[in-house]
């Protein structure tokens, strides 16, 4: 499967069509200009209408972070997912230490080692207090290429609140602003999370990450979108194994791909390129 401009274009257009059919009706997504216009319109959306997730990072370790991103996305309610997808899974990545924040803010998910945390999807205005406290996550260096490594996605426990009630998921019928939600106390029942439906045994896929022309901060953005959307599309589930491969660019990599993270080529604004890709299920090794 070669990642031609036509294929990349089709994937990018399909993403817009599935998230925002209204944009697909109005704009000609068959052209690069149409794609860019759709993204520009999404980017220019009034803050009041945007649904956003804040992702707080104290220390970025790629493989742990992939597992935690999956766990966060897999625990979201369908209502949250739908709202967030309309905003193209918009996420703001902030540098911060969750240890210093969990008593003051409600998080949807906090990693076991407290190195990263995510808020539930919410209106932009609601996120203002936390955004004012922190800074954008800065990782200008290139993501280091590492040998391939296979990691296993975690089981999602039926209940959130593993940290003694300092964070909880929202009930399915309710999408409350983060700071207005009461902090769950010790002993209060946490929200019952619907684990992703698993109709087949765990699978293995390859996750390709490009390292050329991107920084750590860029890679965080690309991977976050790819992984979250793969969860929502039912491509990833608990127990699945991902073999993470770093390549300068997604050139000559064997596919086929079930999911691609596509953006404008930093070398040529008239071309698209893939920054990350998730292959179809592989045979078990």
């Amino acid at each position: 499967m070669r990642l031609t401009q036509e294929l990349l274009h089709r994937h990018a257009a399909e993403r817009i069509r599935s998230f925002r059919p209204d944009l697909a009706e109005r704009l000609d997504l068959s052209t690069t200009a149409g794609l860019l216009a759709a993204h520009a319109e999404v980017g220019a959306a009034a803050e009041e209408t945007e649904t956003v997730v804040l992702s707080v990072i104290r220390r970025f370790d790629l493989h742990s972070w992939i597992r935690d991103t999956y766990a966060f996305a897999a625990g979201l309610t369908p209502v949250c997912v739908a709202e967030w997808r309309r905003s193209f899974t918009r996420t703001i990545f902030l540098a911060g230490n969750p240890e210093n924040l969990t008593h003051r803010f409600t998080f949807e998910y906090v990693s076991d080692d407290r190195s990263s945390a995510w808020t539930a999807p919410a209106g932009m205005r609601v996120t203002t207090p936390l955004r004012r406290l922190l800074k954008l996550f800065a990782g200008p260096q290139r993501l280091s290429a590492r040998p391939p490594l296979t990691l296993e996605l975690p089981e999602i426990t039926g209940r959130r609140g593993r940290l003694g009630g300092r964070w909880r998921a929202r009930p399915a019928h309710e999408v409350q602003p983060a700071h207005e939600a009461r902090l769950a106390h010790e002993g209060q029942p946490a929200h019952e999370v619907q684990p992703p439906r698993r109709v087949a045994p765990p699978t293995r896929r390859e996750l390709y990450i490009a390292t050329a022309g991107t920084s750590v901060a860029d890679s965080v953005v690309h991977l976050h979108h790819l992984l979250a959307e793969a969860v929502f599309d039912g491509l990833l589930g608990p127990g699945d194994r991902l073999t993470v491969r770093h390549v300068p660019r997604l050139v000559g990599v064997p596919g086929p791909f079930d999911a691609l993270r596509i953006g404008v080529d930093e070398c040529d604004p008239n071309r698209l390129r893939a920054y990350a890709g998730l292959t179809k299920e592989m045979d078990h090794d």
Partner: protein
Amino acid sequence: MPAPAPSGARRPRILLAPVTVTPTKPLTPSHLKGLFWTDVMFRATALLADVSYRCSHTTYHGCEQTAGFWEYLDRTQGDIDYSTYTEEQIGELYVRYRAVDQDVPVDAYGPYLDAIEQHGWVHPASARVLELWSAHYARLGLHDPGLCEHQPPGSTLEEMIERLGRLGMCLDLREHGGPVFLDGTRAGIPLRQIVGADGRANYVACALRELLPLAPEYDEVVLLYDRGLEGDYLLLQRVLTRLGVQTHRVGIGRVPVNGRIASARHGGWHDCSAGALLAAAGGQHDEPALRLGMRLYFIALLGPGDHQPFRHDLLHKWLRRADRLLADRPLAEHPQADRAAACGTGAPGLVARHRGDHCYVDPYRLATGLLAGRHPGGAERELLAEVFT
């Protein structure tokens, strides 16, 4: 001789840590106010406690305002003889430096930072400024905390970052090329960058290098600063409190000149730099009156806020008032005689009233109390001799 402590009780140990003035320009009225405030606090509190006055220029030479200025000078001015320059001339060069859009590669600062760290090197321009300031300090009776001495901070940058991390107040993103932040978010204070992505430490980082190892040796630490730095000093107080050190903040308002509170980077010292004020006043008043009048004006009249603009006429009025105050309460020819006579009950008892709920003495309360003239004569004379002249 300071009053003895009550029997059985150790005198408290207090650290005064005022913000330093970058040695690149003349001392302005705002600077003088801070210096007098600190000096009166130091000398008054020393009557009651063991006080250390820590003000090290060495610690802050590596900041962009200073090392960057040195690099700019060498690159644009070449080898000139700063030993004959006035503060105003060096200050004009500093204004030019701050006005230029710097696009200096980080490598350019490396040799300067190395020289500062490795052997306490000081650029001749700043050495000249510090030499001139030393002379002003002597004329004004200001305690010299070692302006020209090599006083390196007690920890390296790495040691400081590691210590801050153990306090849970450091966010270090250097692994991926990012900056280092001082993290006060637990107290609801936004992240504050202290080391840039280019590796350069700012003045907050320098202050932490100095204070983290030093502060725990004291019972009380007093941070003095101009109110424009309120946010940073609130954070520094949080860090020291987290270390278990009782820490107080004393923010002092700047002095508007010609209707504006301007940063020294824009110049504006006109005829009210320390040198100019001494030149204008020096010949008309003897030294004790000069020192007393300056302190009363900058502390009692200007007060802790920033509303009172600088006025030459009012300063001279207070210098004349100081003449009269001293004429009415002549200092003993041998001040030690007064001290011996009043030991234990005089000035120490008087200053103790102006401590509030902390060990350090409040200079504003002390100065205004002196002017109210409610104190016994002997104690007042001792106070004038020990603290205000």
